[in-house]
């Protein structure tokens, strides 16, 4: 928790310091750069540099107290939007919130235009180099590049040689790691070909900082970033091999465990791309398709964020579980455009960077504008740390996009600042913080926005039109885990209330069949007899509820729920996402040991986000394919749970019939309904009716089956082409069986006290539900089995 709140959280309380300094403590008033280092904001004599004067004055006018307050808000926005940088790829724990600094780095117009010219030249040069490396290789012949630079370079992709990429360009996105040298001139530390890597964070930084400092942002004439991204969208349309109104561009992501997954989600949303993983794509003949619930849809452009050696297992070997087999065939055939073209990273090699002055003269006939050598000491800029402005070294990543005439540079950057003198120190520093970068305009700025309404009519779309099968699969499981967590929670809560209640209306020795259900739902190995000892039951409940080591515990179900949610993070709105993160937080915040009475309070607190999650799904999610699958998961799980619960409890009458009826109705959240309906003592037939046959009770089996049938009808036309899918027949059969059942017949006992009628129906349902789940996944989630590589014949 502590690292999530951070310093800003504490500062929000407004330390005595702020009060002592009077009503407005100046933000940059005490800022002193380190002696001997160049500073972006203050000159050697301590005076503000001209382009910082105005901003420093305005920041000072905001004041320390106000800045801290606003920044606390901004931090909350970062957390709640789930802006993260996943450090070790663990969905739990190590997913760090994005660290952002409120004070932007400011670059004046003339300074920037010099950098811009240099970046454009460098992008042109890199494209020319790529044209040679993947074409005639004259640079090798002329000795301007050594054989090792190309042939001993893992980024040289032979399969990318000898054909013109779709769209004709050799480079679509270029980025450079930039720092100012000791002489004040810009230097390139590294060339980056991974497309738009970090640009999404730059955009998010802008949104957060411009909201926190709206008056500064408005009045300082800062260049907008939207135009750059609009040109990226133009580029996609231009390089698409298919010129149509429905060009489909996908971002090919390594998946939610990738460190920059958040950024990929963000860029996809912002640029209107379909976020895909390799399992979502397939190659048929020589074209790439997206596997959706409605069949295969052609893909025209791929923004590749997957490592190139993993793109195509057929071409590059390696594991067949990652990548899209046959992708390179489609690329070679010109049926799909890759941005960047495969193999662009070859020019990132140090040797190429060092040879660039000569290469620039040879290929462009120009002198290289931006030198490649690394400065020994980085310049600093003010950063807001611990409620004070201190000097931190800064490095920028600057982006360019291909335009018909050449390249355009994003007027902004992803700036990272931190402790350290060298770029390597900053960039490897775990405590680096990102900064927004403000490029000042000479004249008025255009407030072009990507979401500005266009005048062209847009075809209306309803529902989840192109839902990838993988996403439907994950939503289905998200629904199942959410329901499973709720079922487990209600069962533990019931037993805790038994332990807490002084009254002996519900005695543990009368609850053996419900304890059997408990064993089953938690995969608990304790015997029923031992669970009937209150002290032992309490200990077991604790570990079954909060324990992380026991596989079947509620905590672990919540962990599965979190993972399922993680896999469809791009489909959940921030509120929904927050309810899920709250769940684990509530469970983990529980002190240990805990008296049984207090546990009830904790469990009630956990129930709130679970119910909020269901509520948000019902109230905020459009009734598209995604919603149908999510709710199907919930219904299947709830029906399965009910079948299991009733089979283990009411399937056979015990000596404690009343306790059995009451406790099960209570666990099944239907006791109040029963009492309000029947003012008599509890009886089996009406209770069975309520939990099995009553289609108006949202907790009954019949209710789940009706809902399942409804969902199945809604999704059916999208899947199997036969008249009625197997999964449809299974639901219909199960529902008919329940509808035809007579509650009194179900309740009837044989000589040995068993209820053969009830058991028979429940057994049939117990077989039908898993069969339904399997049939559903065969019909819709067929990607489940990935491709296999042929056994290598060898020699």
């Amino acid at each position, binding site marked *: 928790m502590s690292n999530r709140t951070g310093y800003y959280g504490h500062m929000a309380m407004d330390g005595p310091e702020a009060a002592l300094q009077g009503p407005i403590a100046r933000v940059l008033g005490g800022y002193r750069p380190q002696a001997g280092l160049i500073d972006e904001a203050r000159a050697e004599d301590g005076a503000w540099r001209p382009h910082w004067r105005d901003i420093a004055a305005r920041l000072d006018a905001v004041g320390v107290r106000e800045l801290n307050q606003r920044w606390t808000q901004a931090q909350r926005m970062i957390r709640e939007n789930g802006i993260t940088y996943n450090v070790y790829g663990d969905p739990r724990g190590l997913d760090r919130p994005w660290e952002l600094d409120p004070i932007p780095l400011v670059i004046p117009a003339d300074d920037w235009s010099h950098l811009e010219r240099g970046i454009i030249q460098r992008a042109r040069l890199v494209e020319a180099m790529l044209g040679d490396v993947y074409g005639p290789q004259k640079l090798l012949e002329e000795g301007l590049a*050594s054989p090792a630079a*190309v042939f001993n370079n893992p980024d040289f992709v*032979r399969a990318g040689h000898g054909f013109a990429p779709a769209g004709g360009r050799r480079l679509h996105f270029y980025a450079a790691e930039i720092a100012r040298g000791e002489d004040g001139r810009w230097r390139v530390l590294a060339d980056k070909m991974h497309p738009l890597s970090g640009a999404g964070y730059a955009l998010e930084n802008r949104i957060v900082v411009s909201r926190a400092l709206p008056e500064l942002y408005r009045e300082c004439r800062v260049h907008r970033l939207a135009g750059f991204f609009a040109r990226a969208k133009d580029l996609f349309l231009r390089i698409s091999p298919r010129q149509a109104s429905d060009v489909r561009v996908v971002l090919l992501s390594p998946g939610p465990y990738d460190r920059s997954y958040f950024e990929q989600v963000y860029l996809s949303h912002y640029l209107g791309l379909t976020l895909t993983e390799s399992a979502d794509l397939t190659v048929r003949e020589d074209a790439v398709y997206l596997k959706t619930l409605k069949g295969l849809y052609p893909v025209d452009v791929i923004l590749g964020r997957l490592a190139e050696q993993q793109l195509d297992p057929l071409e590059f070997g390696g594991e067949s579980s990652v990548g899209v087999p046959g992708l390179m065939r489609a690329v070679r055939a010109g049926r799909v455009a890759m941005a960047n073209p495969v193999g662009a990273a070859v020019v990132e090699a140090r040797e190429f960077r060092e040879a660039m002055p000569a290469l620039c003269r040879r290929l462009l006939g120009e002198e290289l504008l931006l030198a490649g050598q690394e400065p020994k000491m980085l310049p600093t800029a003010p950063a807001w740390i611990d409620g004070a402005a201190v000097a931190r070294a800064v490095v920028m990543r600057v982006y360019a996009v291909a335009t018909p005439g050449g390249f355009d540079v994003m007027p902004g950057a992803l700036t990272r600042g931190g402790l350290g003198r060298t770029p390597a120190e900053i960039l490897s520093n775990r405590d680096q913080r990102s900064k927004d970068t403000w490029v000042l305009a000479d004249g008025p700025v255009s407030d072009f926005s990507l979401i500005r309404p266009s005048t062209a009519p847009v075809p209306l779309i309803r529902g989840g039109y192109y839902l990838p099968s993988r996403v439907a699969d994950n939503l289905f499981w998200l629904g199942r885990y959410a329901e499973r967590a709720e079922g487990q929670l209600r069962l533990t809560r019931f037993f805790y209330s038994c332990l807490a209640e002084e009254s002996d209306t519900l005695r543990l020795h009368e609850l053996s069949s419900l304890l059997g259900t408990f064993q089953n739902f938690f995969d608990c190995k304790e015997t029923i007899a031992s669970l009937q000892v209150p002290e032992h039951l309490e200990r077991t409940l604790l570990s079954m509820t909060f324990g992380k080591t026991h596989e079947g515990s509620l905590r672990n179900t919540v962990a599965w729920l979190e993972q399922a949610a993680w896999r469809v993070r791009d489909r959940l709105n921030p509120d929904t996402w927050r309810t899920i993160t709250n769940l684990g937080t509530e469970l983990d915040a529980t002190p240990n040991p805990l008296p049984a009475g207090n546990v009830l309070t904790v469990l009630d607190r956990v129930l709130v986000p679970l119910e909020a999650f269901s509520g948000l799904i019902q109230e905020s999610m459009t009734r598209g394919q995604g919603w149908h699958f999510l709710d199907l998961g919930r219904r299947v799980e709830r029906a399965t749970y009910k079948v299991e619960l009733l089979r283990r409890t009411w399937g056979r009458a015990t000596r404690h019939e009343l306790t059995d009826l009451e406790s099960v109705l209570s666990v099944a959240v239907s006791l109040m309904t029963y009492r309000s309906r029947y003012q008599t003592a509890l009886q089996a037939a009406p209770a069975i009716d309520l939990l099995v046959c009553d289609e108006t009770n949202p907790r009954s089996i019949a209710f789940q089956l009706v809902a399942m049938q409804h969902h199945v009808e809604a999704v059916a036309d999208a899947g199997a082409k036969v008249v009625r899918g197997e999964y449809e027949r299974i639901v219909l059969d199960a529902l008919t069986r329940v509808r035809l059942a007579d509650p009194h017949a179900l309740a009837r006992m044989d000589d040995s006290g068993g209820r053969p009628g009830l058991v028979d129906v429940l057994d049939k349902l117990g077989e039908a539900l898993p069969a339904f789940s399997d049939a559903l996944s065969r019909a819709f989630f067929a990607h489940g089995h990935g491709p296999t590589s042929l*056994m*290598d*014949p060898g*020699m």
Partner: protein
Amino acid sequence: MLYRIRHTTEYRYGDAASLSQNQARLRPRDTSWQKCVGYELQVDPRPSSRSERVDYFGNHVTDFFIQTPHSVFAVTSEALIEVNSPPPPPQCTTPWEQAAAELRSPRNRDALEASQYTFGSSAAPERGELRDWAMEVFLPGRAIVEGAMALMSRIHREFKYDKSATAVNTPVMEAFAMRRGVCQDFAHLMIACLRSLGLSARYVSGYLRTRPPPGTPRLVGADASHAWISVFVPPETWVDLDPTNNQPAVESYITTAWGRDYHDVAPLRGVFLGGGSHALRVSVDVEPVGEPAF
């Protein structure tokens, strides 16, 4: 001499495979001493599409795609090859160190082309241990061809041909430690040794005639596709050597493809959906045309 080659690769699946995408490198390439005068590739079941291309190394590749559900997948290539005797290894006195130096800064197109094969690849990496081992025959100043022949003989002498010792992906250092392997391992090892010395060597896939001419022994590897190596001798010559049979790969050798190592020239590569487990069977038949079969 004219040869007819028939090479069948057959996979049998446990369950039906639905889709299958494949690359075949089975068509023998033309060289200065051999010419492919007839070629046919039969695929069963019939691919819904296929296309031909030439890869980075100049090998012929057939890409094809199968959409018919199938439980047996068979690829048969038939080639008619005109083979002339390649020139014998040149009487070259260039010391190997000088050859390595010339490859570091290539001065002609051939040397530049050859320079890419001086770098380690996944199956034939550069290793200090292999360099030391190879230096025991690559004595200082020794002529490069003579050194390579000595290395070939040493591998043949010290390694046992053993089909059960290694699999298709056994790392070369494991085969080296075991002193066992098959033609693929010996070729990888020899290439790795030459590269560790800074020399340029490539992996060659191809065939040997199935039945030797009368009076000569049957060679190892004649019943399957075979592999050997080619070492670059500056300024412009490639010399093919077969460490499995300890002889220059001249007569009776038919070249199919070459690359950095096996992975660049795998005769058949594929990815399929479904299918379950699968079993593989390969048969190769290489006969001179117009000679009596006996």
